[in-house]
C-alpha cells in the first residue's frame, strides 16, 4: 500500500492558533508533522467532525487535537480505513431508536392527557372552594350569554312560579346557591355551569311533550350539579389544552391538531358521568312522584329524529343506551301507590311553557 500525503492545519484544541502541517497516511496510521510538532495517530482512533466534504476535520477520539485538510483522495482513504470515523456523531445512526422512543413519549403524553388529566380533575374538583366556583359560574354564564347572542331571560311570573316549584321538588339536597334560569333560544338544550347554575334554553320546554319529560332533563342536570361535573370538565379541558399545546409545539398546522384533540377528548362529560346524572334524575323524579322514564321517552324521540339534531344529544351522547338504562332503573324504582299523575298540573305546565311569553323581563 502506497503512502498518501497532503497538507493541512493542526489545532491543539486549547488555542485557536493554526499550525501548517504536512500529513502522511501509511499502513493505517496518520502522521502529522510540522514545526516542532510530530503526531502519529492510529487510524482506528480517528474521529471526524461534521464538515462539508472535501473539507475534513479529524483527530483522535480521546484528545481535543484536530487537523483540517481539503484533500479528496486523503479523505476517501481515511473513510475507507477508519470504521469508526463518524461514530459518536450520534444523531445519524440512532434515528430509529429516537423515533421509537419519541413515539412512546408522545403516546405517553397523549395518554396522560386522556387518562391522567381526568383523574387529576376528579381529585381537584372537590377541593375548589364554593366561592371560587360561583365566580367561575358567573363568568361562564356571561360568556355563554355572549356566545348565544345575549338571549333574553324568560321569567313570566306564573311560569317562574311553576319552575321554582319543580326546582324545589327535584333539587332537594343540592347546595343552597342552586340557580336555574331560562333563556329564549331556538336550540333545545340545558347546560350546567360551575357554581350550581343551570341554564335552560326555551326550545327544550317547547319540545317536551309532558312536564315529566322536561322535569327529567332538569333532574339530570341537577345530577351534574351534585357531582360537580362542570368544574371537573373545566379542569380537565384546561389540563388537556395545556399538555397538547406544548406537546405539538410550533410545527406547521399544530393549532388544528390541538383544537381537534381537545374537542375529541373533552366533548361533553364522560359516559360514566352521564349515567350517574341519569340515575340521579330517576331517583329525584321517583322521590317527587313523577314519571322517571319520561326522560327515556325524550331521549328516544331525539335519537329517532336524526333530522332535527337536537343540541341536547350532541352535548349528551350515547342516547339509545342511556334510554334503555333509564327504563330499567325506573322500572326497578318503587311505584307510587295512588297511581301516577303528572309532576305539574295542566295549568302550571301551560304557564311554564309560556315563561318566555310577551312581557318577558330583560
Amino acid at each position, binding site marked *: 500500500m502506497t503512502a498518501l500525503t497532503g*497538507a493541512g492545519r493542526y489545532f491543539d484544541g486549547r*488555542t*485557536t492558533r493554526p499550525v501548517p502541517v504536512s500529513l502522511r497516511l501509511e499502513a493505517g496510521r496518520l502522521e502529522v508533522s510540522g514545526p516542532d510538532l510530530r503526531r502519529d495517530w492510529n487510524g482506528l482512533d480517528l474521529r471526524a467532525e461534521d464538515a462539508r466534504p472535501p473539507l475534513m476535520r479529524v483527530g483522535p477520539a480521546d484528545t481535543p487535537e484536530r487537523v483540517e485538510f481539503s484533500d479528496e483522495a486523503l479523505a476517501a482513504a481515511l473513510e475507507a480505513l477508519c470504521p469508526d470515523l463518524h461514530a459518536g456523531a450520534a444523531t445519524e445512526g440512532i434515528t430509529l431508536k429516537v423515533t421509537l422512543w419519541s*413515539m412512546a413519549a408522545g403516546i405517553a403524553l397523549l395518554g396522560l392527557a386522556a387518562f391522567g388529566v381526568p383523574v387529576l380533575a376528579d381529585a381537584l374538583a372537590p377541593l375548589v372552594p364554593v366561592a371560587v366556583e360561583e365566580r367561575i359560574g358567573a363568568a361562564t354564564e356571561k360568556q355563554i350569554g355572549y356566545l348565544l347572542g345575549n338571549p333574553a331571560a324568560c321569567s313570566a311570573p306564573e311560569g317562574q312560579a311553576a319552575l321554582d316549584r319543580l326546582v324545589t321538588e327535584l333539587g332537594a339536597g343540592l347546595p343552597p346557591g342552586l340557580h336555574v334560569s331560562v333563556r329564549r333560544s331556538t336550540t333545545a338544550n340545558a347546560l350546567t355551569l360551575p357554581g350550581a347554575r343551570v341554564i335552560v334554553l326555551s326550545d327544550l320546554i317547547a319540545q317536551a311533550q309532558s312536564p315529566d319529560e322536561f322535569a327529567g332533563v332538569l333532574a339530570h342536570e341537577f345530577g351534574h350539579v351534585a357531582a360537580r361535573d362542570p368544574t371537573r370538565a373545566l379542569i380537565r379541558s384546561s389540563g388537556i389544552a395545556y399538555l397538547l399545546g406544548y406537546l405539538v*409545539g410550533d410545527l*406547521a398546522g399544530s393549532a388544528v391538531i390541538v383544537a381537534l384533540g381537545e374537542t375529541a377528548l373533552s366533548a361533553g362529560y364522560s359516559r360514566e358521568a352521564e349515567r350517574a346524572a341519569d340515575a340521579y334524575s330517576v331517583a329525584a323524579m321517583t322521590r317527587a312522584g313523577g314519571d322517571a322514564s319520561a326522560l327515556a321517552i325524550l331521549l328516544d324521540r331525539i335519537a329517532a329524529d336524526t333530522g332535527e339534531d337536537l343540541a341536547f344529544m350532541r352535548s349528551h351522547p350515547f342516547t339509545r343506551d342511556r334510554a334503555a338504562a333509564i327504563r330499567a332503573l325506573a322500572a326497578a324504582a318503587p311505584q307510587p301507590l295512588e297511581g301516577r299523575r303528572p309532576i305539574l298540573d295542566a295549568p302550571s305546565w301551560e304557564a311554564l311553557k309560556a315563561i318566555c311569553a310577551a312581557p318577558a323581563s330583560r
Partner: protein
Amino acid sequence: MDVRNTVSAERPERGGEIAFDQSLAGLAGIVVKGFLLSLATSGIYRFWYATNLRRFFWSRTLVDGSPAAYTGRGEDLFVGFLVAIVVLAPIFAGLSALSLLLPDSPVIAYGLGFVALFLLGQFALYRGRRYRASRTLWRGIRLGQDGSGLVYAVLAAGWWIVVLATFGLAFPFMRAALERYRIRHTLVGTSRMESRARGLAVLPSWLLIWAVVVGTVVALTILAMLGIHARGSRLGEVVLPILTILVTLPVPALYPFYRARETRAFLSAIRLGEVRLVSQMKAWDLYRPYLAYLVQCLKLGILITVAAAIVVVIMMVSGDAVAHSVRFAIGAVIVVALYAWYLVSSVVLYVRVLKAGLWRAVAETTRISDVAALAAIVASAGGMSSSLGEGMADALDVGGVLDIGF
C-alpha cells in the same frame, strides 16, 4: 502550497472570512425526514430535528476556514421541554386562577398575565442562547454565556416600557442595550466579547420606518373616517379597502431594511480582544432571501395548481370508463398526495431558501479584521449549561427549538 487556500475546492477562502456552504447538499433530506418524523411522533421528534438542523448550519459555517461545531443533543432539548412543562404548569394555573378570582377587573388579570409571560419569555430566550453557546465549538474552543436570565428579562421589560412611552422612538436604543448585554456576557474560551453597539447609529434608519408607520396610521385614520361617510357607495366598498391595503404594505416591506442596517452596525461593534468583526451587509442582502422565498412559493403554487388541473381534466375525459366509487377513491388519493407534496415542499423551501438564505446573508457579509490576533483565544474550563431555557422557549413559543439562529 498555502494550506489556508485549500479549504474549499470551488471557493477558495481568504483568511478572516466567514463563509457558508453554497450547495446545501443534504439539507433537504434533514428537513423532509425531520418534518415527517415530527408529524409521526406527534411533535416529539422536533427536538432531534432541530439538533440535526443546527449541526448542519454550524458545520457548514466556516470561520477563517474552520467549521463551527454544534454538540447539543436532542435528548437535552427533550428533557428541557419536560422540565419546562412541569415548571410552567403551576405558573399557568396561578395565572388562570387569578383571572377567575378577579372577574370584575379583567384588565388587571390580563395585564399581570401578559407581564409574567413576557418576563418568562425573555428569560427563556436568554437561557436558550446560553445553552446554544455552551454547545458551540470552533477549533475545539467552547463558547459560553454568563449573566443572568432574570436581569435580562427585567432589562428587556424596562426598555419596552421606555419604547412604549416614547411611541416607539426608543426602539433602536432598546435593541442596542439588549445586544450589549448579550454580547458582553458571551465568552469564546476565556476571552470575553465586547460590544459597542449604539442605538444612535441606527436611529436614522429607524426614524424612516417610524415616519412611515406614523404616516400609515394617520392615513388609515383618514380612510376610516372617509369610510364611515362613504358607506354603501362605490368609494366605500371598493376603493377604500384597496387603498387601505396599499397604505399598509410598506410597513413590513421596510423592516428588513432596518434589520440590515442594525445587523451591520451591531456586528461591526463586536470586539474580541484585538479582533474586530466587520459587516458589509446591505439591505438587498436581506431582501434577496425573502424575494427568492416568495418566488419559489409562487412557483410551487403554480406547479401544484397545474398538476391538479391536469388530474381534473383526465378524470373528466375518462368519463364513465371507470365506476364512480373507483374514481372517487383515486381522486381522494391524488388530493392527499398533492397536499402532502405541497406541505413537504413548502417546509423545505422555508428552511432551504429563507432560513439558509438569511443565515448566508449574515455570514458572508461579515469578516474578521485581524486573523492573527485570533490565535490569542484560549480554551476555558467552563462546563455546559442546562437546556431548561430552550424547553421553556419552545413551550412559550418564543424563538422555539426550530429556530436555528444564534
